């Protein structure tokens, strides 16, 4: 099965913007969390996101903290599933490349090739699999490349220098730098580990480095972007979604971060 690759490729898109001096912003949304969930994607894009992480919910979200767990659980109870989420994505045009974030179980059950082809068919240009370490990439690496999907690897504060090099070399699109030794979730301030890790990664790779986990406020975003090329924001936005905020309201949160970043790094 080959899919038509549509839209902008993730890697060049981010790299171009980064090289132009822009700090990157990657807000997260759990696919299928509400009936109107794709409206949030449009709002994110409108608010200045550079890519959007779309979570495909899995029943065993080991990397996620309470908020994203709740969102996944809710989406699943609503009957969300990979096929329907991708079908929804195929119908929206957000204008920026999308990145899917999901667990390896959902990838391998369809087979890496089919899964990646399906992503591509829905216009998704990036894939993050947080429970798939670089040692276990197996056929997914080739399948993603073949489908034109960037397989974004994850680095952590505990990664050894050798592993950071390996991750930097084999990642595509960008590198997702986990800011802290913890699950996803809102934190009071950016962990010290974030700066150290981002610094090491910048040595190890020329790819954009996005810092995630615990980025909740414009101030966090600014602090994170000081050491990295940009930030990923998840739980803070999902909390708002779960609390019933509209696409426009949550979009405004993203816009505030965009604003803070653009102001801090003109």
């Amino acid at each position, binding site marked *: 099965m080959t899919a038509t690759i549509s839209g902008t490729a993730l890697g060049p898109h981010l790299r171009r913007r980064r090289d132009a001096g822009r700090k990157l912003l990657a807000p997260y949304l759990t696919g299928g969390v509400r009936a109107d969930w794709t409206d949030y994607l449009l709002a994110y894009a409108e608010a200045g996101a550079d890519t959007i992480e779309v979570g495909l919910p*899995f*029943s*065993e*979200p*080991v*990397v996620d*903290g*309470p908020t994203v*767990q*709740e969102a996944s*659980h809710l989406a*699943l109870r609503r009957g969300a*599933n*990979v*096929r329907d989420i991708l079908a929804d994505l195929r119908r929206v045009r957000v204008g920026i490349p999308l990145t899917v974030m999901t*667990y*390896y*179980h*959902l990838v*391998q*059950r*369809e087979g890496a090739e089919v899964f990646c082809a399906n992503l591509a068919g829905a216009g998704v240009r990036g894939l993050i699999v*947080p*429970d*798939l*370490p*670089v*040692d*276990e990439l197996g056929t997914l690496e080739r399948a993603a490349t073949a489908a034109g999907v960037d397989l974004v*690897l*994850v*680095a*952590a*504060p*505990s*990664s*050894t220098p050798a*592993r950071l090099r390996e*991750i930097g070399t084999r990642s595509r699109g960008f590198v997702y730098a*986990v800011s802290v*030794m*913890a*699950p996803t979730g809102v934190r009071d301030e950016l962990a010290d580990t974030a700066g150290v890790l981002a610094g090491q990664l910048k040595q190890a790779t020329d790819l954009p480095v996005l810092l995630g986990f615990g980025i909740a406020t414009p101030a966090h975003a600014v602090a994170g972007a000081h050491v990295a090329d940009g930030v990923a924001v998840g739980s803070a936005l999902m909390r708002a979604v779960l609390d019933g905020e509209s696409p426009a309201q949550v979009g405004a949160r993203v816009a505030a971060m965009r604003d803070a970043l653009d102001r801090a790094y003109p």
Partner: protein
Amino acid sequence: MGTVAAQSPALLPAAGLMRDPGGTGRFGEFGGRFVPESLIPACAEVEEAFRQAWSDAGFRQDLDRLLAVYAGRPTALTPAWSLSAELGITLLLKREDLAHTGSHKINNVLGQALLARRMGRTRLIAETGAGQHGVATATAAALLGLGATVFMGEKDMARQELNVHRMRVLGAEVVPVTSGSRTLKDATSEAMRHWVTCVDEAYYCLGSVMGPHPYPWMVREFQRVIGTEARAQCATELPAAIPDYVVACVGGGSNAAGTFAGFADTTAQLIGVEAAGGAAIADGRVAVMHGHRSYAVQDEHGQILEAESIAAGLDYPGVGPEHAHLHDIGRARYVTVTDDEVLAAVRRLARAEGILPALESAHAVAWVIRAAEGGELPPRATVLLTLSGRGDKDTATLLEVAR
């Protein structure tokens, strides 16, 4: 998973079966280390420490001494005199119910707790369903002067109030898990999430042959003592030295793995008995969950289902990766029994032998009864059955069912 490969002689006994799965922790296509990058160094450190410890005579001596003077090993091998006569077979029971804390779980936690101490860790983390592994972990932690944090689904905590209190009396902190189905699988995820936050100080003491490499292998090695003892005891009890069948219940699969390990290189047929309500091998498909690739029961969309068994310890939708492999190559057979068969088996063993088995262990008994009475076992077949735990913990359940 419908078809069960017939025991083909070509596949047995494979040299090197149930040995070191190498650096990638693979059992055929199963196993591996599917954890967040954050946990990779911690897992690697555990693997490295285990490899060193396991080849260190001093560590083995310390563990052997604890197993003997503390946990009560070797456990007895009891001929089931009456039930054997009724069934026309020779049934031998490996009595893990007599081990300290009431099941085989202690074998594993003593090994891991010693390892944790050797690694300089000061606290154990564990997941628990019914509370058996939690109690065992709390026990080993108390013994070795370590802290213990046990994650337990809120639903399970309500169902197993007494085990919660046992853990607390032993000094453990029991943390309620409120996410997902609020049962064992969620507790496991939460324990892994927590471990990320404290890898330098805490050691994750996993309760069965599952999780990321080296856990499935390491836990099987710590449980191998069951099979090794049983093999030697069978040599004394049985004229043919090796039993025709080796049977154990399978939740995650640790008591079965430990038992099978002693007989993998023999002609014995290995039978793993799953709960019909949570049969990862019989009803499941390939899954990657909790750090490894194996089988698990899932819905049409690949979401993991909750298991539903009367035996809390088998209420886990997955199974250890080595069992998936043993199944695939046909070296072991995996069968299921229903809750009703299990309840009947509890009563039958209790009345015939004066042994009240754990509901988990009664799964193995139920299959032997069905297979013997249904003619699947040839007359005079010799059967080694691992009785993984005692039934005291289940008396309240039995009482409810009886009402």
